[in-house]
């Protein structure tokens, strides 16, 4: 985190991105600032002492919602010690609170001018991302102890309220006294600080964000009577961590990664405006701190054995926002599960379709998959009954609205060419779907994994229809449709001379023939014919797709392959986690363990926090996973990746009333155990033993010892 020069402190969809001194000085390209509901509420928040910026000594992120910055004035030379320290403690709780403390280490009293510059551009995140100009007017208001920054465009109003509290001075004998109060102007806050010998000065500021203008409408935003407090958040985090299974393992970094994942997942929980207290995972910092159908579903799947409540909320909330009408601007159809919800200015003025936007062709099938998998783990038949109507609507969408060519496949083509998404699958960048020779197919497109998800969704819905909805006719019909889809898919997508499935079919039904990681998702779905599985596995772990760290999104040798291309050559941890699940589904235990090991090794290099994506360079060449430049971190489905990989290594499966454990550990892990895995069985432990004896000295070095390349590198890092 500090290695990238920025520090993020967050609570749901409110977050602060600052430099390592705690300053916010937003540039057009950097998403620095205080953000809430997709809007930047502070673009400038710079602390100076006697007119000079401060130097960070260290940064300490105590919790995800709290950071401490230890600062000193620059003395200009290493030979002069600073005689002052400044501690800046910031916690993000309904906006943020910042506590400033100055310590005088010398016997000489000093008088200082402490200044905080404050400004806001009220940029919509989309504007930051795409460098757009604002259309409204700014205003400010200054009172005794408050500075209000405002922005107005017609009836749209967003305000930042900065309030100061009393300042206190504590002298060297521990006597405290009130200090002069702050002076506020339109551009910030000035404190005159008289600091006695060995004295301490302290003050606090509070920054709040308002969605409709301060006076106007707190009734709606503050539905949770009083906003939550720091104590609540600490207790909540403790409860969250203690509710998750305990990990025991002889590979130390894995424990660290596990704890980091659980904590980041807690940080990314977010309550959509109308859900009250219920939380689901937001997609990722900084660009995607909002509800995404696909991301929330896949993350909930990854986290099922650890935090099943995420799945329940995700299902309920996405069900309550399921498409109900035809709206071309939003790519909405009845029964479709949403893609993305946004709350910023461009969405408010319908310059973007995100209120919510429905441009994803996979979230609807994934919704059904999550519902079934959730019930298998939790035994919560009530939610499955509650969502029967939504499930049937989802099935209708798959059959009627998604089949744009009327040939029994799921297709996509946006009906909003200006601001809709071209590619409505998880690889949603413009160039992600290509032929081997680099050409891009026309629309509509039917990517292969969409057919896989649909197959799986129908099989799973059939089970729910049979066991919970009491509709055996529907169940039989779904099973038949699934079998038919599998038969046709294996005929139409299989490229016989290359022994893999086409990435997609184009508008003419021609195969889009690039080799991609999408074929791994087909294993997860079960749509691959058993006799063909070994071909798929060979491709996935062959040199064109497998980098040594993970499976690339697009194979080396394809015309558009680029190891630093977002969806055309990078390695996505979440992609690999679902592929590992797929390998297990087809019995390829060792291969699944290999994929898990590569990604978990990479996690160690990112200090336990896997980014959204990293570069596709060969492991033997770079020795360490190279970060993708603008990757989001933490990102929900990357955060969920170690959780799912632990599950695939232990072979966890919910079968009837039992937790089935069938471990296959990668080389170098001696033992692995998850204690108290929650589910319909109550709590059960899952144990796995490795085939390789781990030497004690390797354990001390905290390595998976058999991996010599890693060992060499870590030796290098340690010297």
């Amino acid at each position, binding site marked *: 985190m500090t290695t990238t020069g920025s520090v993020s402190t967050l609570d749901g969809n409110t977050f602060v991105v600052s430099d390592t001194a705690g300053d916010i000085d937003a540039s057009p390209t950097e998403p620095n600032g205080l953000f809430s509901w997709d809007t930047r509420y502070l673009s400038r928040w710079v602390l100076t002492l006697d007119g000079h910026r401060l130097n960070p000594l260290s940064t300490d992120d105590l919790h995800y919602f709290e950071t401490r910055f230890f600062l000193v004035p620059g003395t200009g030379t290493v030979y002069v010690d600073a005689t002052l320290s400044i501690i800046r403690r910031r916690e993000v709780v309904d906006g943020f609170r910042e506590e400033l403390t100055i310590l005088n280490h010398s016997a000489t009293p000093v008088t200082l001018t402490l200044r905080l510059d404050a400004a806001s551009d009220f940029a919509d995140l989309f504007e930051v991302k795409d460098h757009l100009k604002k259309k409204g007017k700014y205003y400010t208001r200054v009172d005794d102890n408050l500075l209000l920054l405002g922005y107005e465009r*017609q*009836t*749209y*109003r967003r305000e930042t309220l900065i309030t100061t509290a009393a300042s206190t001075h504590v002298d060297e004998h521990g006597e405290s006294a009130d200090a002069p109060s702050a002076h506020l102007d339109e551009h910030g806050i000035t404190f005159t600080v008289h600091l006695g010998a060995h004295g301490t000065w302290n003050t606090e500021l509070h920054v709040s964000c308002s*969605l*409709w*203008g301060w006076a*106007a*409408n707190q*009734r*709606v935003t503050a*539905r949770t009577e009083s906003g939550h407090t720091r104590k609540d958040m600490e207790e909540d985090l403790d409860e969250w961590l203690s509710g998750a299974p305990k990990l025991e393992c002889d590979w130390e970094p894995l424990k660290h990664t596990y704890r980091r994942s659980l904590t980041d997942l807690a940080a990314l929980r977010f309550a959509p*405006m*109308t*859900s*009250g207290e219920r939380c689901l995972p937001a997609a990722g910092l900084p660009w995607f701190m909002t509800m995404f159908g696909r991301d929330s579903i896949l993350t909930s799947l990854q986290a099922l054995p650890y935090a099943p409540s995420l799945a329940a909320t995700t299902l309920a909330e996405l069900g*309550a926002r399921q498409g*109900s*009408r*035809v*709206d*071309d*601007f*939003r790519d*909405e159809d009845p029964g479709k599960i949403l893609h993305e919800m946004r*709350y*910023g200015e461009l*969405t*408010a*003025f*319908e310059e973007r379709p995100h*209120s*919510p936007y429905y441009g994803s062709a996979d979230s609807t099938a994934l919704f059904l998959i999550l519902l079934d998998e959730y019930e298998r783990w939790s035994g919560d038949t009530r939610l499955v009954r*509650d969502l029967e*109507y939504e499930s049937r609507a989802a099935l209708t969408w798959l059959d009627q609205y998604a089949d744009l060519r009327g040939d029994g496949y799921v297709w996509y083509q946006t009906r909003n060419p200006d601001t809709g998404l071209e590619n409505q699958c998880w690889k949603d960048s413009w160039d992600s779907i290509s032929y081997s020779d680099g050409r891009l197919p026309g629309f509509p497109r039917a990517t292969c994994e969409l057919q896989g998800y649909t197959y799986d969704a129908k099989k799973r819905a059939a089970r729910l229809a049979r066991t919970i909805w009491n509709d055996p006719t529907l169940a039989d019909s779904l099973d038949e449709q699934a079998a038919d889809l599998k038969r046709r898919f294996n005929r139409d997508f299989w490229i016989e001379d290359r022994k893999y499935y086409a990435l997609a079919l184009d508008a003419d039904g021609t195969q889009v023939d690039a080799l991609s990681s999408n074929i791994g998702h087909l294993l997860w779905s079960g749509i691959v014919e058993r006799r063909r599985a070994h071909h798929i596995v060979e491709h996935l772990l062959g040199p064109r797709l497998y980098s040594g760290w993970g499976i690339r999104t697009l194979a080396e040798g394809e015309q558009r392959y680029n190891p630093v291309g977002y969806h055309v050559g990078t390695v996505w941890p979440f992609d690999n986690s679902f592929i590992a699940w797929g390998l297990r589904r087809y019995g390829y235990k060792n291969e699944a363990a290999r994929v898990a090991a590569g990604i978990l090794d990479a996690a160690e290099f990112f200090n336990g926090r896997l980014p959204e994506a990293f570069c596709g360079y060969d492991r033997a060449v770079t020795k360490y996973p190279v970060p993708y430049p603008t990757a989001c971190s933490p990102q929900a489905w990357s955060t969920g990746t170690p959780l799912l990989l632990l599950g695939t290594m232990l072979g966890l499966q919910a079968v009837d009333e039992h937790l089935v454990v069938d471990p296959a550990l990668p080389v170098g892990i001696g033992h692995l155990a998850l204690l108290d895995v929650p589910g319909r069985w109550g709590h059960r432990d899952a144990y796995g033993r490795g085939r390789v004896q781990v030497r004690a000295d390797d354990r001390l070095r905290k390595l998976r010892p058999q991996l010599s390349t890693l060992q060499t590198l870590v030796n290098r890092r340690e010297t």
Partner: protein
Amino acid sequence: MNDPTADYFHSLAEHGRYPLLRATSGTIRFDLGGNGHAEHWRVTIDRGHIDVSRGAEHADCVVHVAKTLFDGMVTGRVNTMAAVLRGQIDVEGELHLIVMLQRLFPGRPPLPEPATRRHPK
């Protein structure tokens, strides 16, 4: 006189049952302003069953909105959620009730085909 709002409420009441709202219960009052007076509509949702009446009695969710804007909402020209974010709709009480009800409002009407938008010669 053409009144999309009245037409909408009448057809809403006529239909009666809405499975989309079968998990929703509560009353919404619409205070529709404009031309110096306000008209009040009350929508009672009882697990998917909808009754519509006139009157200014208490409701779980009160929605203040200009009549002309509301005409747009019930004909799909105005997206309710976007209008809330814009500050054109003032909601008191349980926001989720209007969020659920607006799912029954129509989507944005499709753009006319380019040919029909061309100026006649």
